[in-house]
């Protein structure tokens, strides 16, 4: 699977722009210089050879260098950790809000709560991340002045952070540095909630449909016939059994989260990998783009694997 994705990435980025050098600097350099650089970068070799090289490099962790000379791997680690932090909290928010709402909707189908819950889920999914972000910024920064509009930490604290991958929230937590912690949290709230709301919509819909479906199960009726309290029937029989399909689909939403984070980072100027990707695309730094998207592909596959493992744990039938 990884192989397919990587091949896809390679092909996509070679097909139209040609090789990275020409695409980036095509109109800007004299042809002789172009040819020289292409040769230096090995882009005039047969495509198959380049492809082999690419695979070898990715597998050994070498993702090349950006136009500025930074190691792409380094960029991925540093900015990737920022994106990771954002994604974790967005996901936590989505689960904390979405699961109870979805559960309640599934239980009392077509009731008042169900209607509003569903509507809430639909609207939060429909509102583009950047629109919500905009509204939040208008409200909380402009009107109320409570929260900073962008960035991951204030400039003063930024200076104190060393180079390299960081999960700032957890670091501040463990160090017990309340000052830093509050700063990080203030910067984290809006982006995390914005992205989280997007996923919340999906979670609500997912949980609701799957709980409705499991509640129709024969074993649920049988449990009720044994006099099992309704609460336990819903949690242990319906919801627990719905987790398998829910988690599977949630795993597929990893792609959604990545896409959404690109937009969120752009809106809040969050120093994540999505932000960088947009920059590189604009600068036509295809090598960097290739490197980052390759990483995305690998991440998606890894998450798939984790989902499979989780399913095996939850469902004993899968193991045999």
């Amino acid at each position, binding site marked *: 699977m990884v192989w397919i994705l990587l091949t896809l990435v390679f092909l996509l980025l070679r097909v139209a722009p040609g090789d990275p050098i020409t695409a980036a600097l095509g109109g800007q350099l004299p042809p002789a210089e172009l040819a020289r650089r292409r040769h230096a970068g090995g882009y005039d070799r047969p495509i198959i050879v380049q492809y082999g090289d690419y695979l070898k490099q990715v597998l050994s962790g070498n993702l090349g260098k950006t136009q500025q000379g930074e190691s792409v791997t380094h960029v991925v680690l540093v900015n990737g950790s920022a994106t990771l932090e954002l994604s974790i909290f967005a996901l936590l928010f989505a689960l904390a809000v979405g699961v109870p709402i979805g559960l309640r909707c599934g239980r009392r189908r077509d009731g008042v709560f169900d209607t509003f819950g569903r509507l809430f889920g639909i609207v939060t999914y429909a509102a583009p991340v950047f629109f919500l972000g905009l509204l939040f910024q208008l409200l909380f920064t402009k009107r109320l002045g409570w929260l900073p509009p962008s960035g991951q930490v204030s400039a003063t604290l930024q200076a104190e952070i060393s180079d390299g991958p960081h999960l700032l929230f957890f670091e501040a937590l463990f160090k017990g540095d309340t000052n830093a912690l509050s700063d990080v949290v203030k910067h984290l709230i809006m982006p995390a909630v914005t992205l989280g709301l997007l996923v919340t919509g999906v979670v609500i819909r997912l949980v609701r449909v799957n709980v409705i479906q499991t509640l129709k199960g024969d074993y649920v*009726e049988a449990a009720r016939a044994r006099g099992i309290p309704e609460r336990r029937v819903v949690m242990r029989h319906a919801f627990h059994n719905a987790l398998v399909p829910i988690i599977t689909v949630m795993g597929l939403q990893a792609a959604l989260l990545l896409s959404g984070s690109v937009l969120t980072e752009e809106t809040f100027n969050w120093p994540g990998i999505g932000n960088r990707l947009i920059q590189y695309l604009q600068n036509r730094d295809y090598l960097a783009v290739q490197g980052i998207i390759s990483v995305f592909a690998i991440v998606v596959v890894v998450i798939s694997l984790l989902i499979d493992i989780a399913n095996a744990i939850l469902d*004993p039938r899968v193991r045999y």
Partner: protein
Amino acid sequence: MTGVELVEGGVPAPHPDVLECDELRVWYGTPRGPVRAVDGVSFSIGRGESLGLVGESGCGKSTLGRGIVGLLPAGTGVDGEVRFEGRNLVGLTQSELRELRGPGIGLIFQEPMTRLNPLMRISHHFAETIRAHEPSAGKKEIRTRSLEALRGMGIPPTRFEQYPHEFSGGMRQRIMIALVLVLKPALVIADEPTTALDVLVEAQILEILADLRRNFDTALLLITHNLGIIAEACDRVAVMYAGRIAEIGEARTVFVEPAHPYTQALLASTISLRTTELRFIPGAPPDLSDPPPGCRFHPRCEHAMQQCRRNEPIDMATTAGRVACWLHGPDIGQSAADREPLQREEIASADEA
């Protein structure tokens, strides 16, 4: 122990009837109007007695079983009385009914393959069931009782921690029965317990059910479309058609001297080694949202009279029990014209209903 009556001397005497249905009606609400699945059913079951409820598919017998314990979709209309050990169940709240389900009335379902939670071990099923009604039961006690119930069904203790998918259909049904019996209910309602199983397993299950009375003094309501099963396992039989009871009485007598034309037709259509030709009942069971007027069986009955189309038959006593059919009287009130046979073409047109 609900509905216990005090007798002189302060010694509580258990109510003579475990279950008494009085004009029970269960109507489902659908977009096209109510479906009268159960439309005026009355019968009783004594302590330790077994009653078989037989009828074609769609006659309402499953609804009856579920209706007794209140396992019906929201909005379903229920009317009449269902007295369990003297206490009327109609109108009780779901949580009151929940307390009765299990230790009072147990329900055995048709498809054992899907009735156990595939993600839960058998031991958890038992623990959950027992704790739901006896929260103070200890782990050891739960285990002992569960294993004992399973042993009675022929399931070895070594398989106690396994998952449902590791058992065959027949074994799962036996596990279901054990789950029901572990709470020692006074009444067990078995809804087509052997329909989904092969004949050999069916025989085992029937023996277990027949033993219920002997070993546990449990009353049994056995719902099925198979007459043979009832002959094997039941004291009395009730024949149900289109939401009503056509005939009810002692099983042996009803099978030898069926009073209702429907019962006669059912018996005639069963196949045995002596069968030389296939006999069937013409027509199809009626649409329960719009049943035929008068006696519901009249469109398919070869003895139908004018009377049958106009008025619902009155229950009359028979040697076995009682029957609802105009053929059996009462003589008062029926004119000669009423007793005229229904014309064939009238029956034919009713056939298409």
